[in-house]
């Protein structure tokens, strides 16, 4: 027969801890990302990072085993898909090379300097969020490597997120699928602008300001000017837009970056202030935009072997 445990003292402790928790929450929210909570987080992350390194190494065989099990089923289809992708990329490379020559000639004619690429820092994803609700990744590069707050993070597909916390050796990246992140985007094909919002998981919501804009399935969305440098591929439209009662056209879009399996990423050395200043005073600092068709733009060949490289923004995945 069930009988309640001695509830007096434990219940008192329980209520006390609840009050303490609520006080902490209030304090942290009032500090809004700075203050004691932020300092404690940075400290905890610094202390925790060496342990994560050790545990990641120790558990690698187990993780490898499970990964290879799951890979086994998709290996054949992946192989075929990658062959097609290689063929397609080779074709695009040839086209790009010829276009590059043509662009250089035209620029020389017009006397225009080519837009410079952004510096980038290569990093590896060290850990993920501690719960399913955390849309974050911890990367193994920090302030000492040049990573700063608000810098955009990309992979070979496109935008992953932005840096929200930095310690000396690691940085925390908030993914674009986080419901609190809004990204100003434009449809690459038409130039129409809108806002892309994460929904925690699955496709993101796209809202376009022009309700008459034509949105086709597969349209590539790239970042518009704002928090992120313009021209980074973000998502592809999943379904044709439908107009809602109101002022915007709404649809969904799938992120082009591989958000579920991120191994290596690049942090773009870019902040919003730089964009503003660059836009007003020094147009040459503005990032390159992805050319139509999603082909990689020029500059890929300039990559230096060092950690910090000059990179042209990621184009769309074919």
């Amino acid at each position, binding site marked *: 027969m069930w009988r309640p445990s001695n509830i007096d003292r434990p219940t008192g402790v329980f209520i006390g801890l609840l009050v303490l928790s609520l006080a902490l929450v209030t304090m942290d929210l009032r500090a809004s990302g700075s203050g004691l909570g932020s300092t404690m987080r940075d400290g905890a992350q610094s202390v925790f990072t060496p342990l994560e390194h050790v545990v990641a190494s120790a558990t690698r065989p187990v993780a490898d085993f499970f990964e290879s099990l799951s890979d086994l089923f998709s290996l054949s289809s992946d192989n075929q898909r990658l062959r097609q992708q290689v063929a397609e990329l080779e074709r695009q490379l040839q086209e790009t090379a010829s276009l590059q020559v043509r662009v250089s000639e035209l620029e020389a004619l017009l006397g225009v300097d080519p837009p410079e690429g952004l510096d980038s820092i290569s990093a590896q994803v060290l850990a993920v969020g*501690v719960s399913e609700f955390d849309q974050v990744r911890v990367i193994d590069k920090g302030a000492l490597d040049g990573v700063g707050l608000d810098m955009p993070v990309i992979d070979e597909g496109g935008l992953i997120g932005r840096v929200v916390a930095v310690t000396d050796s690691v940085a925390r990246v908030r993914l674009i699928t986080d419901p609190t992140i809004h990204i100003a985007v434009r449809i690459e094909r038409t130039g129409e602008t809108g806002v892309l919002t994460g929904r*925690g998981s699955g496709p993101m919501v796209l809202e376009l300001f022009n309700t008459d804009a034509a949105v086709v399935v597969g349209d590539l969305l790239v970042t518009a000017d704002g928090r992120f440098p313009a021209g980074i591929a973000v998502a592809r439209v999943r379904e044709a837009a439908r107009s809602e009662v109101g002022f915007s056209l709404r649809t969904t879009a799938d992120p082009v970056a591989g958000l579920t399996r991120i191994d290596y990423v690049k942090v773009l050395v870019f902040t919003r202030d730089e964009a503003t200043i660059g836009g007003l005073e020094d147009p040459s600092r503005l990032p390159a935009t992805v050319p139509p068709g999603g082909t990689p733009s020029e500059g890929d060949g300039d990559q230096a072997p060092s950690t910090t490289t000059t990179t042209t923004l990621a184009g769309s995945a074919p």
Partner: protein
Amino acid sequence: MKLRRFISTAVIVVMAAAVQTTMFARIRPFDAAPALVLLVVIAFARHLPAEAALLLGFGAGLIQDLLSESALGLWALVFTTAAYFVLRFRDRIEDDFSLIGPFVFGVTVGSLALFSVLGTIFGEKTLADVGLIKKILLPSLYNMVLAAMILPFATWVLGAARRRSSPFEL
């Protein structure tokens, strides 16, 4: 002995958080991972004295808060509640061993649902997540499966199986 148990429990909680953020970043069947730290809290709260179990919940939650982006204290509140829930029901569970699996499942579902609600109240927009049901149910299911390993492990670490005669004695 108390100090040894305290240290081993603290080490296991920290290790659970490290395994959660590294190994379960790669092993994610159906794109979800178990809530390992919560499972450790449930497993140890079954045996610890009441106050110690509540402090364990609070401390483990605080560690999870420090490693996550949510407001500091949110997971602490959720884990303390989970520990309290375990305290209130652990006698009944001990009486009927077949209830342990569903109990772990239920506590995990309740805790994650509580976090979703609190997260939304405190501006995390957790309930706006389209995959919310999956993010609650799959970790709970995995926790129920892993409970077959973690619960006996906690019993072994605390040396509780052969000694415990009442829920508050250790």
